[in-house]
């Protein structure tokens, strides 16, 4: 029967699951091969480079915002340590989408941790790898592990320290973070900073050149702006954009607007219109008369919100952009900004819980308006 016809046999199964290099995500394709390729994390890289020569590695905790190269760094490091042949037997990587309850820690992780590392295989590419006598377990997005699971990790980290090193990767390690203190204290911490625009620029241009896509500098700037230091996002956007542009015949050039659309970013004009209605000075000439009746103002705001929702923009995105606008605004005072921040925080939580977009965008708009008009 049509759709669920079982696979005929395995004999004709060409290696189906190997992703065509053309289709391979660029983030995988251009993952740094060595830690020296890692962009903009000079300090961390410098420390890690030493471990390469001494082959002594502590337990590590990588933290920093998404897309700053945490996972790439540890993978690159592992590759450099073990080489491609030994990599499989020496490295275990688990990330958030894998089951990582306490049972997995107790079974899978513990089992892997206590194996004596297999003998080094002579690498085929003729290079010599340090291949130190331990294995590495990478726990990506470790802050999403349950408390219990982390608790179970504590002893494992100590007992098998001789033959196994852990590398935890997470976003935050502040006191409120979900990495429990005993685990955090067993690791040496490495902070990853958001990419500065120069390194991001460099990297993106490099990829563009390698992929043979012509990308004007304005587009790269837009990529960096919309991805806010997250290189992975920037690369993904770039790939989508090039896909779109190359699909037409002849290929259309990529424009900054394309990037905005791909990133789901609300165009500035829309945000500025909304801000104007809310009484925020955005330097546009069509500022609404200050002495307009309050009542009609409510209607105005409501109408504007409805318009935005109809355009299909996501409320979280609108929220984020209005937030940037208000918080960085030159003339609003601290009190107003603080008040607005409260509104934003609440709305963000609500939207995360799946609240109705229109109601909450309106709520944010009204809250901002109230705060902004308070002093004037």
């Amino acid at each position, binding site marked *: 029967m049509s759709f669920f016809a079982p696979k005929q046999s395995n004999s004709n199964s060409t290696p189906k*699951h190997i992703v065509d290099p053309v289709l391979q995500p660029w983030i*995988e394709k251009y993952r740094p091969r060595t830690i020296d390729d890692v962009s903009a994390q000079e300090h961390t890289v410098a420390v890690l480079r030493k471990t390469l020569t001494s082959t002594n590695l502590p337990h590590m905790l990588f933290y920093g915002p998404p897309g700053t190269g945490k996972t790439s760094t540890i993978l690159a490091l592992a590759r450099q340590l073990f080489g491609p042949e030994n990599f499989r037997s020496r490295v275990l*990587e688990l990330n958030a989408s894998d*089951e990582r309850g306490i049972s997995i820690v107790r079974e899978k992780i513990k089992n892997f941790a206590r194996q004596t590392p297999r003998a080094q295989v002579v690498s085929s590419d003729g290079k010599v790898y340090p291949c130190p006598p331990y294995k590495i377990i990478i726990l990506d997005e470790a802050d999403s592990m349950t408390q219990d699971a982390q608790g179970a990790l504590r002893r494992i980290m100590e007992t098998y320290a001789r033959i196994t090193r852990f590398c935890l990767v997470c976003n935050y390690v502040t006191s409120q973070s979900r990495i429990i203190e005993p685990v955090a204290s067993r690791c040496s911490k490495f902070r990853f900073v958001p990419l500065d625009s120069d390194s991001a620029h460099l990297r993106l241009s490099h990829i563009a050149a390698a992929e043979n896509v012509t990308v004007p500098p304005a587009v790269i700037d837009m990529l960096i702006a919309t991805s806010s230091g997250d290189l992975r996002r920037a690369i993904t956007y770039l790939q989508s954009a090039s896909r779109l542009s190359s699909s037409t015949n002849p290929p259309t050039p990529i424009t900054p607007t394309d990037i905005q659309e791909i990133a789901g970013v609300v165009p500035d004009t829309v945000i500025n219109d909304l801000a104007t209605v809310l009484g925020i000075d955005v330097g546009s000439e069509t500022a609404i008369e200050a002495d307009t009746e309050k009542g009609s103002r409510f209607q105005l705001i409501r109408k504007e919100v409805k318009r935005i929702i109809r355009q299909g923009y996501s409320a979280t995105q609108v929220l984020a952009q209005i937030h940037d606008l208000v918080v960085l605004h030159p003339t609003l005072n601290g009190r107003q900004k603080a008040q607005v921040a409260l509104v934003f925080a609440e709305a963000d939580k609500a939207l995360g819980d799946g609240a109705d977009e229109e109601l909450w965008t309106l709520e944010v708009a009204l809250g901002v308006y109230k705060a902004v008009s308070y002093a004037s």
Partner: protein
Amino acid sequence: MRYKKCLNLVAVHQSRRQRSQGELHSRQLHQRLIDILHSWIAIKAAKSAPPPAHGSKVVPDGEPNCLAGLAFVFTGELSSFARDEAIDIAKRYGGRVTLQPSSKTSFVVLGDNAGPAKLAAIKKHGLNMLNEDQFLNLIATRKAGHVDEKTKKKLAKEQEAIRQAAKEMEKKEKEDAKKEDKQDGNLSSQLWTTRYAPQSLKDVCGNKSQVEKLQQWLHDWPSSLKSGFKKPGKNGANMFRAVLITGSPGVGKTTSAHLCAKLEGFTPIELNASDVRSKRLVESGLNINNTSLDGYLHGDKASVSITDKSCIIMDEVDGMSAGDRGGVGALNALIKKSMIPIICIANDRQAQKLKPLIHTTFSIPFQKPPVNMIRSRILSIAYKEKMKIPANVIDQLITSAQSDIRQVLNMLSTWKLSSDTMDFDESKSLAKMNEKYTVMSPFDITTKILGPYLFSPSARESLGDKMDLYFQDHSFVPLFIQENYLRSQPARMRNLEGPEKILKHLELMDKAASSLSDGDLVDSLIHGPEQHWSLMPLHAILSTIRPSSSMYGNGVHYGGPNSMAFPQWLGQNSKQNKLMRQLGDIQAKMRLKVSGDKSEIRHSYIPAFHPHLVQPLAENGTTAAEKVIRRMDEYYLSKEDWDTIVELGVGDHKDEIILKKIPPATKTAFTRKYNSSEHPIAFHKAHDLGKAPKKIAGGPTPDLEEAYEVDEIAEELSEEDEKKEKNKDDLSADKLIQAPKKKKVTNTASDKAKNKIKR
């Protein structure tokens, strides 16, 4: 404090208004606000003049029994005692407390906000009224033994009777002891409940007439049997071959039955919940024509020979459950043919299970005996056991045990181990300890929580006590509170008038409603995927106690205009689920033609269908049927779906209204027409095709390989395939294995049963 806050409010308001000057309107508004606030402050001040004197007054140490012979009625809210406390005080000093004032009432203790009905009664009887202080004063000054001659004599007489009874008991005991000396050892090792079980009908407390009826019935049995149960007899009892005694536990049902049977010369054969009483056993065991009863009388009872003078006592009939399937029916059949008297005993006559027995048995309901009837018996027992316990203490015990004699005896026998005397407070705490776990219905709980007393300033219930009410039935109580919290007249707005009252009422409701909303959030955490059961106490507070603390007051009762209602939520929710499912069916069928999801179907299509599917039938009658059916076929809708579409309407499109507009003839013609022709079907339901459902395993197999190590996946997949195949095999294998197993089990069970019977 409050006053200050109000002034602040005015000040804030003033300053705020000053900012937006120039509006005449706002100034007027402002003035009005200040007026209102001032009047409100005045009322506040007046109200708080006598400070709520909770626990401020000390109960004087009066002489014991100083209130003896006096009858009290308490009404209204006392300022420093809760009602229950005041009643306790009166009882402790030997006073009698009644609920309604009557001519026999000596004093009425009057508090605030007394009910008008009671006031009228007080006026009518011209009763003495006391306020709280006078009441306390009375206790402090009145001398004990201030009893008139008549009561004195009465008391003396009672004492004498008690002594007499005790003596008699002792005599009998000795006789018994002599008789059973060799077999049973000494009596003191027996439970009190056995030792003081009634030996004669005289000893049975209360229900005299009922016991007589029972005895009479047994007495007349031979003649009734002879006459074929044709002669009704004095009270119609002789028409029946069985009686059904009902009543709450511990009122002496079983005892009376045994006694009566013995007295009338029958040999009682008792079957109770410890015996298996399934249909088969009742049928075969109690051989229907009673020629041989030894079927069930195996083992130690076998020595009892069955004669015409046997009598069956089926105890705990309402306990025939679970394993005793069909037991009641079989019993009923037995009763219809029985040649010996059958006495059935149950707690609740209304129980659904006993329905079949109602017509075949003569009903003898046992009431809870009144306190004074039990009192004398208990007093004699206490006397005999050489315990010194005053009558009012006994009363307290009996009331708290809800007239359960057995319970009282048990309490006393335990107490005897440590002490020979007991005073009022001790009895109170003992009773509290042995408190019958009364299961209050959600209705009662709601009445109590939302009622005027639980949260009144003088109430002594702790937060824990209030939460206990929630935990009595934590799934229903919150629903009841939500359903009924609007029906009270909140006590908190009692002293307000006019707009303030309305505003206060709205504020209180607002508080209650938002707390209910909080409670629901907690509820979803408790019953959500993570099951935070530890939040239950919080839920108790938010869903039940906080709303009630705002809204408590008069008004939530059975009956009357504000009568308490059963939570609508349950019915509405199941209706919603049902319609949701049906809507899902419609959406699935329409999916081939329509892109919308469920809610879009409901929002846009259902109203749009109305003029196409429903209206023509109402307007054009049968002639439109064909067109309607064609339209339905376009969307693969069936007649059932048509019904659902009609049912989904609200307002003007409500199904009742719509269906009324369509003449019944049209409806039937429409149905007939639809059924007579073939219709396209979008798909077959899976269970119609007999597809085996796939089990969702508890936890899926974790994927542990890395994202970019692609080459390994292929292998792993095929492995998983195999696993799946295996699982399927297992499943079917299981099914096959299980089926015969089940049969076997039932076989052995029936075998066992057979064996039992044979024996």
